[in-house]
């Protein structure tokens, strides 16, 4: 009895594992197909611009507001910890480094995945369910070049900009709490920050992180949409998978990148 049920468990686990490996293989081939067909869509840049508007520009509000609040919380928490060690002057450096190295890229990517990644998956999934992708292919227009690649590149290009905006708003929030509300010295706040932040280790590495996250989220979003079962439930579960898989992938990649970078 126990033997057969544990064997079933083992079989189920193996099945899930094999499915996951299959899927990873499909993602890789899909990625290769996107890269192969990107030339045509990058040459028609207005297609990408349009998607940058939908994925990037329309995400600005949530990025700006979230960045602001995260910076303000950093200001409060950072001050209450630093003041115990008598180093409240370092608040500017703390806020900037936390944002540039970690919170900016990671949080902006998580927000981007839930705001734009899910929308991309739902849109492509619905296009598939209503045979729009088939109709396009039958009209001799490659759906990967026309629909998928522009959305992928729009995500890759938008993400670093969104993360940068998130950082700026965060620093602004930290400044507001630290200098305007708590009354730290304005000049110290900025000069501490300028001394602590290094162009290469902090800013460039943060940008690289957000580029990688942008590529990962966009790839997951377009893949899940393209792979969705062509039904209402199929599209809805694909949308959920985009958000969950993106979140896990972002956090795992962040660990790996951080280990290599800092």
């Amino acid at each position, binding site marked *: 009895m126990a033997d057969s049920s544990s064997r079933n468990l083992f079989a189920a686990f193996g099945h899930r594992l094999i499915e996951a490996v299959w899927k990873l293989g*499909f993602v890789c081939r899909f990625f*290769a197909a996107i890269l192969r067909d990107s030339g045509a869509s990058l040459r028609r840049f207005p297609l990408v611009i349009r998607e940058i508007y939908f994925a990037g520009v329309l995400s600005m509000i949530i990025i700006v507001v979230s960045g602001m609040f995260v910076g303000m919380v950093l200001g409060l928490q950072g001050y209450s910890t630093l003041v115990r060690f008598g180093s409240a002057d370092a608040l500017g450096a703390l806020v900037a480094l936390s944002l540039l190295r970690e919170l900016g890229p990671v949080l902006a990517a998580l927000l981007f995945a839930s705001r734009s990644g899910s929308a991309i998956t739902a849109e492509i999934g619905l296009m598939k369910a209503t045979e729009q992708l*088939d109709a396009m292919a039958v*009209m*001799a*227009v490659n*759906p990967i070049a026309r629909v998928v690649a522009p959305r992928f590149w729009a995500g890759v290009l938008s993400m670093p900009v969104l993360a940068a905006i998130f950082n700026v708003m965060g620093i602004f929030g930290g400044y507001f709490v630290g200098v305007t509300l708590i009354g730290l010295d304005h000049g110290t706040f900025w000069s501490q920050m300028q001394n602590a932040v290094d162009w290469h280790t902090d800013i460039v590495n943060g940008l690289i992180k957000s580029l990688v996250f942008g590529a990962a989220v966009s790839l997951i979003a377009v893949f899940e949409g*393209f792979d969705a079962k062509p039904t209402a439930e199929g599209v809805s579960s694909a949308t959920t998978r985009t958000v969950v898989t993106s979140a896990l992938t972002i956090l795992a990649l962040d660990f790996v990148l951080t280990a290599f970078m800092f």
Partner: protein
Amino acid sequence: MCKKAALSRGVCAQVRAGPVFSATATRLTHTVEPDAFIELDKVSFAYGSRRILDGVSLRIARGKLAAIMGGSGSGKTTLLRLISGQVKPDSGRVWVDGQDVAKLNTAGLYAMRRRMGMLFQFGALFTDLSVQDNVAFPLREHTGLPDTMIRDLVLMKLQAVGLRGAAGLMPAELSGGMARRVALARAIALDPDLMLYDEPFTGLDPIALGTIAALIKRLNDALGATAVMVTHDVHVSLNVVDEVYFVADGKIVASGTPDQVRHSADPFVRQFVDGQPDGPVRLHYPAEDYASQLGLGGRHG
């Protein structure tokens, strides 16, 4: 590799770049009748383990308008998908203008499709584009024509289906019958050599139906296009088509010219033409015995 059916079906179909055979090489191995534009040779096809088509052979000559009739779910749409290369036969061959469709690589397939127009059963309009942008889509993608000329062509195609006034609407604002007429305008935008119509008359009022039937006929006569039309409308289509094929149980069970069909004594054909509920074509999808499924089996007698 693509057998893993449940997973990543769509991706698989798109990513797979078919085996590279040149069209000329395949032509040497098969002597296509000079006038045959579409030829299916013992084509079998199954979705998973369910056999849909089982040894279908048919030949449609260049410039002809052929109708395919058959019960719901008999595999008519599947037949069109085989001709357009959206699915590949499990066995047998599909030839379009002398090319083996299953052996074309992606570039070859797209080259063939550029000369082909297809009306999908449910329209498949692009929901993010207006009516005129939908019709302009193939023109913008495949011709370098200036915008003003594209606009004029679009208005002409929309005029032909009686919807010039709807040019600025979005697909969500159209009725079902209007959407299908827009889809028809889009399918004929490039004046294709081959037209595939999947139920062009569904959801049309009698006036629109007559207009569309005349349009389909005119396209064939004036442009010399070859066309395959899936339809349930026996009486309208018998007036416009050149030949009719009846599909049932995965096979072509009868075929002939409209006159032969009208006077046929074949029970299949009679059932279709006269619209009788009883006959060789079953209305019901294969199922277990009705009485036993309702729990009225032997026990109660």
